[in-house]
């Protein structure tokens, strides 16, 4: 449920601060298209251009954790690498049998 897409913050926009605690907007880039996204659901003090956020219905819902993302990818890659080694070993043993 709940389509969420990662986007990169291009600029924190100077907002009108009627709602100081829930300000405000950031310009976010998704694959070359840009939209103003509300960042009031995040601690916007901690956000800066270059950060990635998950966007849902025009709101940034979560700041993407680069360390966690890298860890997940490393794990997946290690599986892939091990798999390739096995395939290579399998091919070798298959050719030896011929």
């Amino acid at each position, binding site marked *: 449920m709940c389509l969420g897409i990662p986007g990169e913050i291009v600029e924190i926009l100077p907002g009108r601060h009627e709602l100081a605690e829930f300000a405000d907007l950031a310009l976010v880039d998704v694959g070359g298209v840009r939209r103003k996204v509300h960042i009031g659901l995040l601690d916007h003090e901690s956000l800066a251009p270059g950060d990635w956020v998950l966007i849902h219905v025009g709101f940034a819902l979560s700041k993407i954790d680069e360390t966690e*993302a890298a860890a997940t990818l490393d794990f997946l890659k290690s*599986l892939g690498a091990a798999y390739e080694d096995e395939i290579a070993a399998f091919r070798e043993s298959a050719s030896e049998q011929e």
Partner: protein
Amino acid sequence: MRFVDEYRDADQAHALADRMAALCRPGRRYQFMEVCGGHTHAIYKHGLEDYLPDAVEMIHGPGCPVCVIPMGRLDDAFHIAEQPGVIMTTFGDMMRVPGGRGTFLDAKARGADIRMVYSPLDALKIAHANPGRHVVFMAVGFETTAPSTALTILRAEAEGIGNFSVFCNHVTIIPSIKAILDSPDQRADGFVGPGHVSAVIGCRPYEFVPRVYGKPLVVTGFEPLDVLRAVHQLLTQLAEGRCEVENQYARVVPWDGNARALSVIGRVMELRGYFEWRGLGWIPHSALKISERYAAYDAERIFQIPGVRVADPKACQCGEVLKGVLKPWECKVFGTACTPETPIGTCMVSSEGACAAYYNFGRFSRKRVREATRR
């Protein structure tokens, strides 16, 4: 696209498929429920069943907030939309969902002013631009979407926009999972937990699933490798005799969720005693309403809604499909009376519904499809 493309790698998917197959005990069958419609969609859109071991079967759960809105609530929404001076706004997903009196598209064709928005803030913008009209936002969604609606109401108040209200149909994820676990014919061996809801509520609320019901649950994202890795983790837990909540989606989901988003919900909304779910019936504490303090923005209070109740069609077996008791094609009306063009039940109404996904993407045998694409 970063954080998307790298999780679609075919080689790593093959590696995971290999690992999963190795974890299956010979002769045993595994049923896992993906609670979330987004996962159902991802499984079909990316053809992920190709990677699952034959012994693993996915059950498509109730997690599409659009599909579970009961027909009566839609009829209430059409009633509001047809009041003089009202502009009704809602997400694109809602436009084709049938109530008792047709869909939003039908209501629009009858003359109601119904507009599609991308964000609740867009609805507020329409209200600001049309001071002579009253703009109602038909809010749907789980805890993922509720904070955005709540923040929009706070914003409306702060900016003094009085011609705006929300017809609140937000639902909560935990009671629906509990309802499924409590169902006597429920048969899942483990759960793929929703990703974006968890970005708000975190992982702790799921701890009762292993503790009380003895089923493992893995929270994960929506890219192919996310989904496959979650199934891999479930199989690993079962193989190792573990039963716990795991977070595969830590890049987006903090274990404790988003406190600020939760506090915004708490400020503007409160739990309903009961809410009706299409296909599942009445579930206690399973939905949110606008709290007394923000009554001025509550369309249910502003408009005399008829409170229409429309019983789910008798022939429809969505409840059984949602619980995984029936496969979509086992339903009596699937593919005959109930199709994506003329949906009867919740599972067929949105592309995320189990039946619609199956009808669109999955209705051919995996083997036949696989062979066709490999030739």
